[in-house]
């Protein structure tokens, strides 16, 4: 009773957790550049070892001359499909948010999986459908599948749970394009700081380029947005950053100069990787992928059939077991054996007349 009487504690601003650092994006999807490549490398190695095993089991000696994909080649392939999300979303007139979210999902998915297990073509379709749902722009599955040639509803739906699971069901994404809008609005609080819509559009195209890179897995959305704006209007961005940041940093916060350095890094990455990969470069990767795909997951392969048979056998076993138990219960008299005669109690409950006996 008394616990409710304690006054509301007034928090010191320094001990408070900034909202962004409470997000799953900060907690689970933020990497260092080195960490990122290490994750991909180990993912690749594990997958290659597993697939080599499976190939050997399928046909002994067959894995000797297979050229498996490297981690970099996997990234290249994924980037191609990230770039394909843009025309797909334009086709359905999805808003920017769906596009950006789907791209984030695809990137995150391939930090937990490899293209040799799950081809990005199907995962991409699922990621867009899932992003449309999680950003409240949903579209019916039939309409969606009909809008993409050669796609059936089950192609999209089969992978949906896998994708959601790989994302850890963490669907909320902090986007750089929203941060850019915010910074562009906030510029109006600076004296003479208004930028026209053309400059905004130019910065937005830089944001779109940044989505083809890994920057969102390394930096915060506000840093990416500032970097993109800075590419369009360096002086104004500098002025705005100076109004928000202190000249002296600490362990947990960067100084103004350090942020400028971070922005420079982001811009370098965007310039280097901000264009979709050429189809020619990817074609070879895709051709080789067909040879080194995990046979467990290719319909019709020996291993796939073996796995199916195994699953089928297990299901059959389960069915038999169930039938057996049902049969047992149905045997004999459905009403069971007769009960022993009950002993007469103190009160005769069957006596419902009013006579005094």
């Amino acid at each position, binding site marked *: 009773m008394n616990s409710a009487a304690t006054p509301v504690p007034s928090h010191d601003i320094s001990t408070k957790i900034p909202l962004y650092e409470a997000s799953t994006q900060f907690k689970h999807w933020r990497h260092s550049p*080195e960490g990122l490549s290490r994750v991909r490398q180990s993912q690749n190695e594990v997958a290659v070892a597993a697939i080599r095993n499976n190939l050997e089991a399928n046909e002994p000696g067959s894995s000797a001359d297979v050229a498996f994909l490297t981690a970099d080649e996997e990234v290249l392939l994924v980037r191609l499909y990230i770039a394909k999300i843009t025309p797909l979303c334009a086709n359905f007139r999805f808003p920017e948010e769906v596009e950006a979210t789907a791209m984030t999902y695809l990137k995150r998915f391939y930090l937990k999986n490899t293209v040799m297990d799950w081809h990005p073509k199907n995962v991409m379709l699922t990621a867009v459908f899932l992003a449309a749902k999680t950003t409240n722009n949903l579209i019916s599955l039939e309409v969606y599948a009909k809008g993409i040639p050669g796609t059936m509803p089950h192609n999209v739906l089969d992978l949906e749970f896998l994708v959601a699971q790989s994302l850890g069901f963490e669907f909320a994404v*902090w986007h750089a394009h929203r941060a850019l809008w*915010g*910074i562009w*609005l*906030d510029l109006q609080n600076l004296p003479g700081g208004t930028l026209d819509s053309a400059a905004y559009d130019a910065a937005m195209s830089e944001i779109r380029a940044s989505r083809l890179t890994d920057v969102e897995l390394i930096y915060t959305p506000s*840093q990416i947005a500032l970097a993109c704006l800075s590419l369009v209007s360096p002086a104004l961005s500098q002025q705005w950053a100076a109004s*928000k940041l202190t000249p002296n940093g600490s362990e947990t916060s960067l100084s103004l100069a350090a942020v400028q350095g971070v922005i420079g890094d982001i811009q370098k990455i965007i310039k280097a990787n901000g264009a979709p990969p050429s189809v020619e470069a990817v074609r070879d990767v895709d051709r080789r992928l067909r040879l080194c795909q995990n046979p467990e997951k290719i319909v019709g392969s020996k291993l796939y059939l073996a796995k199916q048979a195994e699953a089928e056998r297990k299901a059959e076993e389960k069915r038999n077991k169930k039938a057996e138990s049902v049969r047992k219960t149905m045997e004999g008299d459905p009403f069971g054996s007769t009960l022993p005669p009950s002993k007469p*109690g103190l009160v005769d409950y069957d006596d419902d007349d009013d006579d005094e006996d």
Partner: protein
Amino acid sequence: MQAWVTDVGAGGTCDLGLSLACESCIDRLFTLGPAGCPIPGCGKNLRKLAFTPQTFEDLGVEKEVAVRRRIAREFNKRREEFRDLRSYNDYLEEVEDITFNLINDIDLPNTEARIQRNRAENTASIELNNQREELYAQSLKEQEDADRREREHRADELRREEETERAEREKGKREIIDKLETSHKDAFKVVAKSRASALKRASARTTSTQTQSNAKLLRSRAAQSTIVPDVPHVPFTDNYSAYEDKFSLKVGGYSDFMSEAVRKDREGIMRGGGYKVEEAWERAIRCGVASLDLPPLSESIDVDILMNPA
């Protein structure tokens, strides 16, 4: 058919839910004083006094009502007896605790002791409040009586008015006929003149009868209840900072081509669900300043995070 149950009062309670069909059954079993419960396995000592007619189908409800009636007699402090709202609320909570314990048979000896203690400490106040309660009930009853009399009186009045009106109308008609018989004037003029005088009489009547509405009564009753000041309720406090120190919204709004369609939407179709462009702006700007100074991960920390994902 009304059943008689033991679940509520003094004189013992059957835990197995004994219920008897009529009073003669009770007489038959308990006429010689306390006797064991006839349900085998219960055997509790019960008295005739323990049985009350069952009002609710659910015995749990029956019991709760009885417990609440009892508790309301014991714990009847009022808001005015407390310094502030919080201590009053604490008191109410304690009462509810005791009630809950009694209803659900939790820690009965202790609970009864609490009730005893309360009675010992507050005998005077309980008595006083009970008297007040009675007085209030009485005054309420008087008020209701007065209201009812007032209504009856008004209905009488109306009936009488109608009668006099009808009588006057009859009289007017007869007058017109008389005049038409006896005078030599123009028939139309005679009718018009008598109609005018009838109208005058009717309007005089309506202004004289002052109908008192009972709205005045309601107002006076509302004024009796005093206004209790209450501290503002803080619904939710957390330990997150939403970067309030990093930005302030521009007064008068932004010039923003992105949200033009929403702001120019005169019928408010787009804002139907409660959309406010200011909130969208605030969210965007918050996102724009969020963790702008966050250092990118360095190698040593990253290993940690990878080792313990989530």
